[in-house]
C-alpha cells in the first residue's frame, strides 16, 4: 500500500474470494499494475485444502485419483464447463505459483503433483483434495497406510473431538488411539478457541509445555494428529518444532469453519498480493462501472466516493453468497453490470425435487456464459467489453461444491484470464512459458 497509484491500472480485480485473490496474484506476477477491490474475509470459511477436481460426473459421484484424468474426461463430457477451457499446463502453473506464494507468506504447501490426496476430516471422513498444506500432509500418508497413530484433542476446544473421529473410522483403523490433554495455562478455562491456542503455540514456552504433555502419550504411534492449531502466522515453524520434538510425523486435521487454516489462508493471501505490489482496497465495493476506452469503476466505502480506471477488469464477484449473482423472484441476475445470466428457464426448474439429488440443482450451474478467454458474453454472443473477464464461481456450467473443484475453478480460470489479459496488453509471458 505504500506505492503511489498509477492513474489507469492495467487490471482492476473486483472481488476478494479465492478467484479474485488468485487473479491479483497472477497479474502482479506478470508485472501488471493491479488494483483489487472487495471485502476479504470470505476465505475464513475455507479449510486451506485446495480442490482441483475430484468428482465427475456429479450424478455418478465418481471419485478421481488423478485430477488431470478427471479434467480430460470433463473436457470430453462438458466442453462448456469452465474448467474444460483450462489446459493442464495452465492449471499446473496456477497451482504452482499460488502455493509458492502462500508458502512465502507463511503457509507452506506440499508440492502439488499428479494425484488427489485423501485428508482426514474432523468428522472422521476422508476428503479428496489436491493441494494440501504442509502441516496436514503427514495425515495423508497416515490415512493411506493406517499405522498405529495417536489423535489428540484439548479439553475446552469444542469444535474438535478426537473421540468422534476414532468412533467414526476406528473400526477401519485399528491402531488409531485418542487422548485428551489440557492446554497449558488454560486449566481453569471452560472454553478454548483455536486461534488463541495457535497464537500461543508460536511462543516457545507454550510449545514446550504442550509437547511435554504429549510426549508421554506417544506410545507406539507412528504419527500424531492434532486439531489445526499449530501456529497462525508461523505454522510452518511451529509444525516443524512439534515434529522435531516428538520424533514422529505430526499432522493437523482441519477443524470446522471458521478455522485456523482459514485465518492463515486469508492473511497469507492478503500478504501475498500486497507484497507483490497489488494495490488492495478492502472494505470497498464497486457500485457501478462504465466502459469506454478504459473501464471506470465507482466505489463506495471510500470517504467522499471514488472512481478508478483500468484497461481491463476481472469480475470475480462469486455466486450468491459472494453477491456476484442475485436471485430475484423469477430470474437470476448478475448484480454489478446486469450481464446476461445463463440459467434454467423458470424458477420452478432451479431446484431438483429431491433436495439431496446427487446430480445437484440446476440453479447451482447458473452463471455467466463466456468465450474461451473467459470474457462474459452479451445476449448477441459477443463479449460485453473486450477487456472484461469473469473468473471463479460466477461462471456458468459448473457446480464446484459437488464437483469438488472450488480452488481449481478459481485458480485455473484466473490464470487463463490473466494470461489473456497480458497478451492483450502486450506483456510478455511468464518466465516458465518463455523459457
Amino acid at each position, binding site marked *: *500500500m*505504500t506505492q*503511489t497509484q498509477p492513474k489507469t491500472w492495467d487490471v482492476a480485480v473486483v472481488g476478494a474470494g479465492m478467484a479474485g485473490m488468485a487473479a491479483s496474484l497472477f497479474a502482479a506476477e506478470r508485472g501488471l499494475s493491479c488494483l483489487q477491490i472487495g471485502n*476479504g474475509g470470505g476465505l475464513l470459511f475455507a479449510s486451506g485444502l485446495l480442490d482441483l477436481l475430484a468428482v465427475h460426473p456429479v450424478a455418478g459421484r465418481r471419485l478421481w485419483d488423478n485430477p488431470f484424468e478427471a479434467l480430460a474426461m470433463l473436457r470430453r463430457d462438458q466442453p462448456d464447463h469452465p474448467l474444460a477451457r483450462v489446459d493442464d499446463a495452465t492449471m499446473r502453473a496456477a497451482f504452482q505459483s499460488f502455493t509458492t506464494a502462500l508458502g512465502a*507468506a507463511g503457509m507452506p504447501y506440499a508440492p502439488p503433483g499428479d494425484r488427489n490426496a485423501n485428508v482426514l476430516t474432523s468428522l472422521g471422513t476422508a476428503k479428496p483434495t489436491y493441494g494440501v498444506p504442509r502441516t496436514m500432509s503427514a495425515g495423508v500418508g497416515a490415512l493411506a497406510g493406517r499405522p498405529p497413530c495417536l489423535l489428540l484433542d484439548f479439553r475446552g476446544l469444542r469444535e474438535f473431538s478426537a473421540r468422534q473421529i476414532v468412533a467414526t473410522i476406528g473400526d477401519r483403523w485399528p491402531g488409531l488411539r485418542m487422548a485428551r490433554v489440557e492446554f497449558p495455562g488454560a486449566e481453569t478455562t471452560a472454553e478454548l478457541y483455536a486461534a488463541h491456542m495457535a*497464537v500461543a503455540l*508460536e*511462543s*516457545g*514456552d507454550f510449545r514446550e509445555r504442550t509437547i511435554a504433555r504429549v510426549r508421554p502419550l506417544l506410545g507406539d504411534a507412528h504419527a500424531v494428529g492434532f486439531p489445526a492449531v499449530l*501456529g*497462525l*502466522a*508461523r505454522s510452518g515453524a511451529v509444525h516443524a518444532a512439534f515434529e522435531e520434538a516428538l520424533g514422529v510425523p505430526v499432522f493437523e486435521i482441519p477443524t470446522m469453519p471458521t478455522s485456523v487454516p482459514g485465518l492463515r489462508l*486469508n*492473511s497469507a493471501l*492478503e*500478504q501475498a498480493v*500486497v*507484497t507483490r505490489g497489488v494495490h*488492495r482496497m*478492502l*472494505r*470497498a465495493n464497486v457500485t457501478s462501472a462504465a466502459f469506454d476506452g478504459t473501464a471506470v469503476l465507482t466505489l463506495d*466505502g471510500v*470517504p467522499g466516493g471514488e472512481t478508478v480506471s483500468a484497461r481491463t477488469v476481472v469480475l470475480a464477484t462469486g455466486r450468491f453468497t459472494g453477491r456476484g449473482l442475485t436471485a430475484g423472484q423469477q430470474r437470476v441476475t448478475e448484480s454489478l453490470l446486469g450481464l446476461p445470466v445463463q440459467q434454467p428457464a423458470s424458477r420452478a426448474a432451479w431446484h431438483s425435487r429431491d433436495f439431496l439429488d446427487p446430480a445437484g440443482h440446476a440453479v447451482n450451474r447458473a452463471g455467466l456464459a463466456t468465450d474461451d478467454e473467459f470474457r462474459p458474453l452479451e445476449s448477441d454472443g459477443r463479449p460485453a467489453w473486450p477487456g472484461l473477464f469473469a473468473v471463479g464461481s460466477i461462471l456458468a456450467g459448473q457446480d464446484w461444491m459437488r464437483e469438488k473443484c472450488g480452488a481449481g475453478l478459481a485458480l485455473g480460470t484466473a490464470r487463463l484470464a490473466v494470461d489473456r489479459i497480458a497478451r492483450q496488453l502486450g506483456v510478455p509471458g511468464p518466465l516458465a512459458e518463455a523459457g
Partner: protein
Amino acid sequence: MKYALFLGCKIPASVPAYELSTRAVLGRLGVTLVDLPFNCCGYPVRSLDREAFVFAAARNLALAGAAGLDVLTPCKCCFGNLRHAQRFLDEDPALRQRVETALAAERLALPAGVTVEHLLPVLARKVGLAAIAAAVTAPRTGLRVVAHYGCHALRPSDVTRFDHPLAPTIFEDLVRVTGATPVEWPRRLDCCGEPVHDANPSLSDRLTQAKVDDARESGAEVLATACPYCQMRFTEFQAAGSAAPLPVLLYPQLLGQALGLAPRTLGLS
C-alpha cells in the same frame, strides 16, 4: 509541505521526546508544522458519550480548517479517533447538524476536506521513502528492529486507511530506510495492552507481556513504536519488571539517529 501538528494530550505531558524528535525529523525533511490551539481529540469520552466525542474531534477539525491546513498527528489514538469522528459525521446527518450548531456558537464551522494524517504515512508516502533514504547519513546498519503497528491506526482499515490491515508494510519499510533490519514477529499487529490498563491491569499486563516476549523471541534488539500510549505502555511495563528491558524507541528517534541528528534534539540522553 505544511501541516497543523496535533500532539494530543499524552505527548506533551508524558512523552515529550516524541514531540522533540518529531519536530527535529520533520524539520530536517522539510515539513513545516503549525501549532493551533487544539483540544482533546475526544478519545476519553468515546465510550461514555458519542456526541461529546464527535464534537471535541470536530472542533479540532474546524480549527485546522479555519487555518487551511491538514492535520498531522504522531499519536495513533488521536489519529484513529479523529478519523472515526469524520466517519460518524459522514454517516449521521442529524449528529452533524447538532455538531455544526454547537460549533457555530463558537464561530467555527466544520471544514470540508481536512485530511487527518498520522506521522508514519506522511513520512512514507508524502515525504517519500526515497527522499528519506537520500537524507540518511548515519544508517543504523545491523540493528534488528521489531515494528509495533498499534491498533488504532491500523484498524478498522476502512476508517483509518493507514495500510493493509492484515499485511501492512509501511512500518517495516520505514525501519528499512534507516538502514536497520526489520524483524518479523508474529504478534506485530496485536494490541499493546494500554487501553485496558485502567479497567483490568492484570489483563493489560498479560497482553503486554506476550508482545514483549514475542519481540525478544524473534531476536529483536529494539522495539519501535509510533504512538505515545504504546511507547508508555512498553516502557512502563518493562520498568516494573525484573528482566533487563528491551529498548523501546519512538520511530522518529530511530530515524533521527539515521539522519545524524544530535541525541539531545531527539529526546535521547
